[in-house]
Structures are given as structure tokens and as C-alpha cells.
């Protein structure tokens, strides 16, 4: 599969490396060139390992196309901004018809509503709430 990941933070970079190890084609886009370091290994750069990296703003269509959105099978929106993630996820879904769109949303309220609207949302905050409740309220 061709996997496009927007945002090379802790989540984006970790998923990218795992996906590449699993044999997928992986392209990462981030506006910060230094975020590339998160992808490199001790002895091998990300590119030598077969990955792709594009510097660009998430909302810039030219950058998304350069990163390969037109032939993506999976699109993961994992920038630090909920609103950016929700907008680019909908661009991927509606304009580029990417078959599987996954979006990270920190705000539980919107994560739930956009999930109902057909986006696959992942809400770390909700996971933390559920876990904390489970542990704190354990008998």
C-alpha cells in the first residue's frame, strides 16, 4: 500500500517507520525540515531505507500532490493541530478520494461528531480519559 502521513511528530514518525518496516510505500509531509530526524535510524537515513519526505504546509495542494496524495491508499492526518487535521482529512477524502482516511483529533467532542460524519477519527484524549477512569475507579 501507499501510505501518506501528514505531520512528522511522535505519532506520525512512529507510524511511518512501522509502516515502512512492514513493507509499505511510505511518504511523510511536514512543514519543519528538522522533523526528518525522527525518521532516520542510526546507520541509515529515511530515504536510504526507502521512505519519502516532503517539506510543505499541510493545506498546500501542490505539496500534497508532490507527496503523492493522488495515488495514496491510506492518508493519516497527524499534525499537532486538530483543525488542520480535520480540514486536510476532508480534502483527502472528498477531493482526492483516498480510500482510507485516518485523522487524529485531540478534542473528544469533535472526534465523535466527525466520526459520525464518516471520518475515521482517533482521539488520544478519549483513550486517556477511558484508561484513567478504568484505573482510578477500579475497586
Amino acid at each position, binding site marked *: 500500500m501507499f501510505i501518506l502521513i501528514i505531520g512528522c511528530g511522535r505519532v506520525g514518525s512512529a507510524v511511518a517507520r512501522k509502516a515502512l518496516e512492514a513493507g509499505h510505500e511510505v511518504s511523510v509531509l511536514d512543514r519543519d525540515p528538522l522533523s526528518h530526524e525522527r525518521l532516520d535510524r542510526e546507520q541509515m537515513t529515511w530515504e536510504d531505507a526507502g521512505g519519502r519526505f516532503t517539506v510543505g504546509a499541510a493545506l*498546500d495542494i501542490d505539496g500534497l500532490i508532490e507527496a503523492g496524495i493522488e495515488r495514496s491508499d491510506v492518508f493519516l492526518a497527524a499534525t499537532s*493541530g*486538530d*483543525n488542520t487535521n480535520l*480540514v486536510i482529512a476532508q*480534502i483527502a477524502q472528498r477531493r482526492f478520494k483516498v480510500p482510507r482516511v485516518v485523522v487524529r483529533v485531540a478534542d473528544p*467532542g469533535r472526534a465523535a*461528531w466527525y466520526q459520525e460524519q464518516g471520518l475515521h477519527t482517533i482521539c488520544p484524549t478519549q483513550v486517556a480519559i477511558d484508561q484513567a477512569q478504568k484505573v482510578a475507579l477500579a475497586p
Partner: protein
Amino acid sequence: MYVIIAGAGKVGWNLARELIAKDREVTVIESDHNRFRVVEDELEHAVQYGDATELWVLERAGIERANLVIAVTGDDEDNILICQVAKEKYGCQRIVARVNNPRNLQHFKLLGIQPAVSATDLILRLIEHEVPEYGLIQLLALEEEHLEIIELEVGEGCEADGKRVQDIDLPDGSLIISVLRGGVGFVPKADSVIEAGDQVLLILDPGLEAEITLQFAPTGASASA
């Protein structure tokens, strides 16, 4: 009418002032605490502190009964989402969004956020209006209603030059709504005569521009076009 304005920057604050002066009920939502306190000094209870992209903040502001939601923050993603949620989740009939970066206008359109207002575009239109060398100027496009208003300068010796309005061969779906001559505008009647140098405003279905231009462009230009 109840209006919610997201963003208490220069645009949001002044909009709120104007609307309050017109006896509208207004709530402004501002996410920067310092800015909120400055604006609160003047607007008092008409401004609330919070991130307008969060649902509970919108609900606290009473989005369920809002007739109009205006998103004028400095962030295009925020403006898109505020309007999307207002329209699709809370059924707000009317929205207006500000476009900060004109390159993002395509995203507003893709997600059905209309009208989306871009200051850059408005200024460009004004420049075209003041410098009418482009021939045809689009003054207003009502995209959902499929109507637009354009301005044309009547060329010397063109098809329409010296003709009465009723004799100009305009396509169905277009209408001359006013004429500017010597700095004065008037609404023409069927027997008003159009002269070279007039600026003509037309309302039309989008797509008829080329046919209409044929009637008003100078003969040489239309032949070569």
C-alpha cells in the same frame, strides 16, 4: 436575529459594534485571553472567552438558536470548521467565513462553506473597478444562486454602440441593470440608448460572459477574439 461571531480581531470586534448598534443580539467568541479582556471592557457580556472550534464553547454561546454565524478568526482551518459545524451539526441557516489566505479559498468551496469572503479578492475587484482596462469585471458572484453581476465598458463602434437597450442582442438569462455615464448612474429603460464609453452593469447566468462581450467589445477586438 441572533448572531455569533468567532474571533474578536479588528474585523470581529467592529462587526460586533455595527451589529449591536443596529440592535442585533450578538455574542463574540475570542480564544486569546488578553484580547478577550480588552474587548470585554467595551462589549461586556456580548463577548465570551473560549475556542470557537470546540463544540461546548459554541453550545455555551447558544449556537442552537443562532440565525447567523460569522467566522472571522485569523486561521482559515478554524473558520472552515466553525462554519461547517454551525451549518451541518447545528443547522444554522446562514454562515459567513473569512478567507485569510486566498489560496485556501478552494478548500472553503470544497467543503461547501459559502459565502467565503477574502479581503485580498475584494481589494482586487476594487482595483479592477478603478482601472477598467480589463474590459469585463466581475463585481459579484452569487455561486449558490447561480447569478453574477458584471461590469463592461461599451467599446467604440461595437454592436451595442448607439442601440436602444431593447435592440441589443443579449442572450436569454442576462439583463442590463444600470448604466454609468460621465460618473452618473441610471437604470435604463427599453428605449434608453447605449453609447460608447458607458459602463454597463449586467446581471446574468454564469457562462454567458463570452456571448455578452461580443455585443460590447470594440468591433476589431471582437473579430480577433
